[in-house]
């Protein structure tokens, strides 16, 4: 699992910490972090992670725009949208832009484990 790189993009340092804590318990600990959509796109191009968690509502560039950019750069990008309550419309747009899955805050360990299993099982 050491070679697996996971991008976590959220403007909330608390949300990033909570997500990292759950993912670490699942055995993955190679993280790339970003705090807005532009930074996520820049870091994605540099590191080309195996999985990206992207918040929807962020400053500078939101999650939907970041998904569009990332998918333009890498059509096979595996992106999971992190949604908060009240962002249903944006969530729908994110899925239309090519997000593979979504998870709602606050994070449930089992939902994250399922996403990791779906992405990395059988690699």
């Amino acid at each position, binding site marked *: 699992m050491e070679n697996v790189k996971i991008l976590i993009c959220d*403007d*909330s*340092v*608390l*949300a990033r*910490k909570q997500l990292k804590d759950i993912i670490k318990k699942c055995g993955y600990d190679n993280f790339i972090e970003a705090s807005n959509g532009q930074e996520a796109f820049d870091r994605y191009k540099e590191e080309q992670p195996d999985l990206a968690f992207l918040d929807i*509502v*962020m*400053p500078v560039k939101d999650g939907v725009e970041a998904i569009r950019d990332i998918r333009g750069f890498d059509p096979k990008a595996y992106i999971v949208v992190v949604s*908060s*309550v*009240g*962002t*249903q*419309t944006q969530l729908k747009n994110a899925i239309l832009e090519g997000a593979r899955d979504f998870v*709602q*805050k*606050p994070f*449930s360990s089992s939902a994250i484990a399922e996403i990791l299993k779906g992405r990395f099982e059988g690699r």
Partner: protein
Amino acid sequence: MHTQFFGNFLLNKGVITPEQLIEALKIQSSTHKKFGTLAIHSGYMSASEVADVYITQTHYDKRFGELAMELGYLTPEQVDKLLTIQLPNYMLLGQILVDQKILTHIELENLITEYKSEYEIYELDMMEEQKNLVDKLLSSLYLPEELPNTQNIISYLTLLFNNLVRFIGEDFTPLNIMTLPEVPTSFCVSQMVDGSFAFMSALDMDPETAIAFASRYVDEEFNEFDEYVSASMEDFLNLHNGLFSVNMSNDYTLELHLQPPAAHENTVLATESPCYLLPVIYSFGTVNFIFSVTS
């Protein structure tokens, strides 16, 4: 739910001082049992089931018992049973004030009678949280007369009080709302919400209060005012506004769009409209809630 209104009633009557109320709330907070805890103690639910309901509550504006039934953790009979053993909180607050020798039993009895007749409370069951009752209390106690979009704001404040109860604790008392052209803040997080009911919302508190607020919200002990504490305040505000936007969409087909929350230090909040400042007194400090309707 109604402890805070009874507390405000006593303050407005001049029966107790804010300091006495804070002291009583401190004692009450250490003796309070949450509905979930009662469910565990009664053997009706496991701790993980209770945690599941608390998480689900962050997605839906529903009461604990209602969600627990929907999730199949409790039967209606069990909820009824738990409701009967829930401590009636304003009675508890009154009892603490008697214990502190601030009130006599007779004074308390008279004040409760007066409070009940003034606000037409016939139910002693504090878990009822009836929306109409809360709306009535809000309109009669706290709202400035010139408030725009009153119905939306009442819905917003009702949800705020419910969210404070759910996520921070019910040992609080809201004071009367102040109308101000601008609000100087200390450690503040704000969030703009766009749409046909656009508004600015913010939480402001001193660092010590913020640490205690974040510790309760995240259920993790914070010891210093750091980025996690600030992010916890943002998260609460974002969650609250998110739930409000869902309610507005469901109830009034009013679509709102949340901007990312932002943190500020020692700034002055102002919009082109008046700002409304609602101080909420907790046992650990005062949380200032600031609100301004921008459209």
